[in-house]
């Protein structure tokens, strides 16, 4: 694949999800991303374009970062379709193209969701929280009289942003090339990385950070402890209650936001009583 085509696919992939709809999901985005490649491949056969585009406008849905593996693999297969010498061969290649699109989009979505949304996003959040705490920014209770340099404010978010994007942009850029060069035997280059090990390690680090953050929060409440008064006990009970109930709601698949809204309601009732 030419560098310029790869670059165009990479840049256009940032708009993959524009036009997302419940009918065909990312179909418009996929067509938009692949258009420079299709124009290049069919530059001598412009009449083929409507039928080619028709295939790209069918259902497509995957994780946006990992979608790059689909772009490369589909591009490779599209070249095989364009070079088909007979109608039977052409039909075979189109069927293969459709099955690659379907199977690869499901596999990449599964890996991408677990890695980027399930592990990397919460992990970078915890890293940012630790950086803020190390810089003396206590987000548990804000004190308006304290002046904080702007660099400190954006430092934590910036590092989280950098870590997440360094990995996601690397996967996005390399994914196009790897899947284009790889064969079906290596699952279009997906087996080149040990995704499960990466996810496992990210989660292991995340778990350590999450426990550390809870311990820090407990320390934060205990460090000013002088006497066992009503105020301290109330706060401790609230914190303990919500930590325990969060584990239960997580098991019941009730999102945090509803727990918070329920807390507002329950506290209002308790305060009126």
């Amino acid at each position: 694949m030419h560098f310029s085509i790869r670059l165009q696919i990479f840049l256009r992939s940032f708009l993959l999800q524009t036009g997302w709809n419940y009918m065909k999901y990312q179909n418009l985005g996929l067509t938009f991303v692949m258009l420079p490649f299709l124009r290049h491949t069919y530059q001598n056969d412009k009449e083929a374009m409507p039928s080619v585009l028709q295939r790209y406008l069918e259902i497509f849905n995957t994780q946006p970062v990992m979608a790059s593996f689909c772009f490369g693999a589909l591009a490779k297969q599209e070249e095989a379709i364009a070079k088909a010498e007979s109608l039977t061969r052409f039909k075979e290649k189109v069927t293969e193209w459709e099955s690659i699109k379907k199977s690869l989009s499901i596999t990449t979505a599964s890996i991408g969701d677990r890695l980027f949304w399930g592990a990397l996003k919460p992990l970078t959040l915890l890293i940012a929280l630790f950086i803020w705490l190390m810089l003396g920014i206590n987000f548990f209770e804000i004190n308006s009289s304290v002046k904080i340099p702007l660099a400190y404010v954006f430092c934590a978010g910036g590092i989280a942003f950098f870590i997440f994007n360094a990995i996601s942009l690397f996967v996005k850029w390399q994914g196009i090339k790897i899947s284009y060069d790889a064969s079906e035997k290596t699952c279009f280059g997906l087996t080149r990385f040990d995704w499960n090990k990466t996810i496992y390690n990210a989660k292991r680090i995340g778990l350590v950070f999450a426990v550390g953050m809870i311990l820090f929060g407990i320390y934060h409440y205990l460090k000013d402890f002088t006497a066992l008064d009503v105020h301290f006990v109330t706060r401790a009970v609230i914190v303990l209650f919500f930590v325990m109930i969060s584990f239960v709601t997580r098991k019941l698949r009730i999102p945090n936001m509803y727990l918070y809204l329920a807390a507002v309601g329950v506290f209002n009732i308790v305060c009126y009583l």
Partner: protein
Amino acid sequence: MTPEIFMLCVLAALLELDTTYAFQLTFSRGIIAAPLISLVTGDILAGIQVGVFTELIFADVNPLGGILPPSAVICAAVSLALHAMGLELYFAFFFGVVGAILFAVAEKLMRKNRFKWLVFWETQILKTPNAVVRAVFMALATSFLMNFILLFGFIWLCAKGMFWLLPHIPMQAHFACRFAYMAVPWIGLATLIPAFRLKAR
């Protein structure tokens, strides 16, 4: 409604595009969007706190498949706008969370209705392939406009309603919202541990 709030809505509507429609470089995360938005309102510390709380409260809902999580940008923008207008942060955050949930519902409706013009654009693309570029940029522009209108409308409604209601709200409600707000980071942190649970390698 000051020009400051107008600017805040424009910035938030732009950042919201990053959630799904464009780039997805995580500009729309609470810890990045809220401090950025707070540059407009001037209360940076409130921006950090709202950003952290927003991320933690929505940490357990991910955009898997067709799932549409509540927007961290909308929550942060509503909370910080109402706080800049004089509402206490614990009240403002409540409206932020409600706003984000309502915005997700509105967004779902928009996505459901988008297939009506999808048929039109598909026909156009088959005629002239370049129409896909127009379709993508039209979708981007309409999404930005809808984000802005919904956000501005919601902040305006909340501001009008709250400042009319505020003198009549009893002290107990203040305590209740403050306690619930205090519990937010704990709710979020406690769900992060099961989120990182190690299943199988």
